[in-house]
């Protein structure tokens, strides 16, 4: 893996093909489109649904600790299992799942570089059978909320200018021309972005085949917008999954020390009474 700060958090499709039946490795697919897994998945992979299994379905929150322990245990994942996650849209919700596993202290969790798209494009074997696994006992730690930004922290960061804010949505969501990705329901009352945020769409971190760009390219991309790790970074999007992708890139591929995912994101900020909103494009950093 090309010069990444933490290459141990990323594996190739070849690696997955070689390790899919390794008893110490559990492959998990997490998609935006929760029907994708049923169409066919990496043989032996478990499927987790982001909207029912990776969140609190009663109140808006990430998965509670006890439920995460139950999910991992029933997936045959023990504390020392190597978990490799992949999914559609270049690993959007795979990164969201990895972020949650890190919050709850799982040591060895990795992404499959290129995600579901690369596996399919390479003409690899897929299966429609869900694997039968022996349940394991899982004990989570945390939650480590240093990886997660809540609203008051974002408000304080805005006021104090203490953090670099990175908006990873599409340019038109950033400017306020549209309120959600094209074709999806509008889920906010106001369009635009948090004042002072830099627009660096998540997809710019990826190559056409879905793999991550090299560390040098990533450094140029974020550094060109003034995001160089010299101050803490808060990433946000609409509901927190695209920003998990950028969080992963900044933390594990570029090795920034302090990166936080604001999962409340625009569905919180853009609905908040009295929250300051900026519309339109902003000048390039350092311009």
């Amino acid at each position, binding site marked *: 893996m090309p010069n990444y700060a933490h290459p141990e958090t990323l594996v190739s499709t070849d690696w997955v093909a070689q390790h899919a039946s390794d008893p110490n490795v559990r492959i998990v697919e997490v998609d*935006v*489109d929760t*029907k*994708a897994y049923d*169409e*066919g998945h990496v043989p032996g992979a478990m499927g987790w649904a982001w909207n029912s299994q990776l969140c609190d379905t009663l109140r808006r929150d990430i998965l509670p600790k006890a439920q995460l322990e139950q999910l991992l245990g029933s997936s045959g994942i023990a504390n020392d299992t190597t978990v490799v996650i992949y999914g*559609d*849209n*270049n690993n*959007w919700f795979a990164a969201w799942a990895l972020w949650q596993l890190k919050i709850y202290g799982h040591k060895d969790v990795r992404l499959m570089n290129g995600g579901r*798209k690369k*596996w*399919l*494009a*390479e*003409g*690899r*074997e*897929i*299966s*429609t059978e869900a694997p039968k696994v022996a349940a394991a006992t899982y004990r989570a730690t945390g939650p480590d909320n240093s990886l997660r930004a809540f609203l008051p922290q974002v408000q304080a960061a805005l006021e104090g200018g203490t953090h670099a804010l990175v908006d990873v*949505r*599409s*340019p*038109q*969501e950033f*400017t*306020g*021309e*549209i*309120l*959600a*990705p*094209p*074709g*999806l329901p*509008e889920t906010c009352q106001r*369009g*635009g972005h948090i004042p002072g945020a830099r627009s660096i*769409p998540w*997809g710019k971190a990826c190559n056409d085949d879905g793999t991550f760009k090299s560390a040098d390219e990533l450094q140029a991309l974020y550094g060109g917008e003034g995001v160089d790790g010299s101050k803490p970074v808060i990433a946000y999007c609409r509901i927190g999954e*695209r920003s998990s992708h950028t969080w992963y890139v900044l933390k594990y591929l570029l090795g920034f020390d302090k990166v936080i995912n604001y999962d409340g994101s625009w569905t919180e900020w853009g609905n908040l009474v009295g929250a300051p909103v900026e*519309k*339109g494009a902003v000048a390039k950093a350092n311009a």
Partner: protein
Amino acid sequence: MKVEEYQERKTEVAGWPVNLASYRLGSVYHCKADNVSPGAALARTTGSTREEAEQKALDRAGQLLARTQVRAV
């Protein structure tokens, strides 16, 4: 079962760029349409030919994308 004949192409639907990924699993063609920049999935369809699967995906994508309102900023 192996993924065969994987292809991607970009097109425009209701004024929005759309990415179509299609492939064959056995005798069935599968197609997924997503909007390009954010990459959100719009439609997942099947057909007995690639053209049929793609057309179904384009039709569904068109219905969804037509609802997207663009505002002046």
